[in-house]
């Protein structure tokens, strides 16, 4: 296997007195889908935001393509080639689909926005995700349904020439067909050699697309296992109790203190 594209070592993060992430280690390999699972409040979204530069970490190292990096903000992450679909989507309601997809990275021609170019590119990407229900790419995001918003957020992430894509519950609000599209997309991204991190509460989806599964339990990495090596039941135990047989944290009771 090639070297990991993204590697986290000993990441800690607290919000004031609340210690949310404890010594998280995680490697993301190119061409692989890594599922990140855990109960509500386990710290999955926080971990993603730390990688994306939204939250500064308290300690720990981030290596990108083997090089230690300091991601200080979303712009740094984007420049490295890290794209994120946030759980709360982060779209500007008062802008239209195209404007949202290119937000912060507008294409310009002679210093002015190149609207036609951006519109064409946005349409291509959306078409590839089979967004059939959106009438126009110039629709304001405020008038989209939850699922449509989610597709826009995903399209926004795949529009760029990225190396790592982090998706935080991308299918939570999607219908059957759209979920299918997104899962196919996730596989396709991995096949193209990207490192993909997928957060999901749906075990069927996780087992379908993931190569390996990282289980967070109360802010600790309980176990990282190959999806072929474990059963549904074991993963559920890891999520709810932090251990399953000889997998997981040695004394889960200690973690709750």
């Amino acid at each position, binding site marked *: 296997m090639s070297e990991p594209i993204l590697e986290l070592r000993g990441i800690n993060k607290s919000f004031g007195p609340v210690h949310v992430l404890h010594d998280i280690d995680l490697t993301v390999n190119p061409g692989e889908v890594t599922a990140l699972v855990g109960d509500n409040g386990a710290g999955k979204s926080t971990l993603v935001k730390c990688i994306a530069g939204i939250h500064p970490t308290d300690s720990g190292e981030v290596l990108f393509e083997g090089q230690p990096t300091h991601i200080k903000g979303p712009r740094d992450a984007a420049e490295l080639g890290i794209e994120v679909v946030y759980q709360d989507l982060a779209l500007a309601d008062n802008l239209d689909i195209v404007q949202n997809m290119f*937000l912060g990275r507008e294409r310009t021609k002679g210093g002015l926005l190149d609207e*036609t170019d951006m519109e*064409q590119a946005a349409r291509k990407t959306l078409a*590839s995700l*089979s967004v059939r229900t959106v009438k126009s790419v110039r629709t304001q995001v405020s008038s989209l349904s*939850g699922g449509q918003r989610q597709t826009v957020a995903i399209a926004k992430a*795949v529009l760029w*020439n990225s190396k790592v894509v982090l998706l935080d519950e991308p299918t939570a609000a999607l219908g059957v067909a759209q979920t299918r599209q997104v899962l196919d997309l996730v596989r*396709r991204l991995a096949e*193209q050699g990207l490192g993909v991190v997928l957060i999901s509460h749906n075990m069927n989806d996780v087992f379908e697309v993931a190569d390996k599964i990282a289980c967070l339990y109360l802010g600790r990495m309980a176990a990282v296992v190959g999806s072929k090596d474990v059963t549904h039941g074991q993963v559920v135990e890891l999520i709810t109790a932090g251990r399953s047989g000889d997998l997981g944290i040695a004394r889960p009771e200690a973690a709750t203190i």
Partner: protein
Amino acid sequence: MSSEEASMTNTTQTPEQETPPQGAISDFGIDTTSQSTGEAVRDYWARVRGGELGSLPALLGLIVLLIVFSSLSDTFFTLGNLANLLQQGASITIIAMGLVFVLLLGEIDLSAGTASGVTASVMALHLIHNGNLLGGMGDTVFYVFCGLLVLAIVLAVLMKIWAGAALSLIALLIAVIGIPANAWLEMLLAVCVGAAIGCVTGFLVAKVGIPSFVVTLALFLVWGGVVLQLIGQGGTLGLRDDTIFNVANGNLNFVGSWVLFIVAVGGYAAVVLTRHFSRLRKGLVAQPTSLVLAKIGALAVLAAVITYALSLNRAPSNLIVIQGVPYVVPLVLVLLVVGTFVLDRTSYGRHVYAVGGNKEAARRAGINVERIRMSVFVIASSAAAIGAIVYSSKVGSVDPNAGAGNTLLLSVGAAVIGGTSLFGGKGRLRDAVIGGAVLAIIQNGMGLLKQPAAVVFIVTGLVLLLAASVDALSRRRAATAAR
């Protein structure tokens, strides 16, 4: 260009391979064909019903007011009064245009009025004391003034707002070097001092994180005091200078008026048509060409009628001739065009809307939210300074109340009445112009009808309330229509 296209297709999703080419077209069928006139009108109507009213209510209000006052007063719809109206409304319109930037972020600048008073006072002092601000202000005040300019430069550099830093530096240089009085220099100084004031306000809001309401309420009082200090209790500073006097009172000559007409309408047509045909060429959705042409035509006719009317002699007596388009018209037009361009066609403008719509989304998109938030205050204060030049020119002096009281309230009112949302993220510069026109007409018309100040205040307030309710209701409507 082609390399960008290539990188597009190399991106992660490879659209061409996965979807048949016609997929793109069927998915956005409506997007790719050009609309018929009927569709365009229906589309617009659907948006209005969905709560996107824009400046429609204000435009309707404007027409109603024009009709009401024309029928009630014999003098209202005379050429002299209409030109007067433009000159009266210009200053609050200009201040309102600057405030639109602040309102777009959901912030407020209550200090714009008295800040404009400060810039007017500095301008007047420089003129009266022939460039010797040290003498005009007195030692202590002058050194504090220079210190504040230095502070503004430092803050602007810290936040990488280069334009703000440069303008503040120019203000400092003009103050320190003491170049002899020159009307143009004084006006430049006013704008630069405005920018410096904006740097301070913006920093307190964006970086220190004090709510803009509190910061600008405090600064409203501070600048009001500074104006008093600069002018001296009870006095006024006369602006005896032809150039400054002409800003609000002068007119373009006959030829100049028509040149302005040709440049304005021609420029508008060129921009709109270039964009329209470029969209059509690339197969993107566009309004029907006939509708676009009709819009340009209507505007051209309206502009021609106004230019013609204003180029007639409107002097009340036979002894003098007053004709031509007032200078404030091209001034407001230029500010409107430049500002609209910045908001609609540059990344900066896009980011202003984004921060106003969803600050967190903007931050995650890599936008420097603090910088954007600070910059709008610099723009607002600079615009307020231009407004100050216009109203001081109109009156011919700067008094201790400059910018206090009505000026600010009317400016915020103008922006809101025009359709700029106080909730942020929604609004355009032309809203300020339409809103400014509404308020100017109310003030002017009620004055002609010899209404007491009490009635004028009450009516103005009620109109503002009405506009704010329209904003709130249309938001509610948009929220329920959304999902």
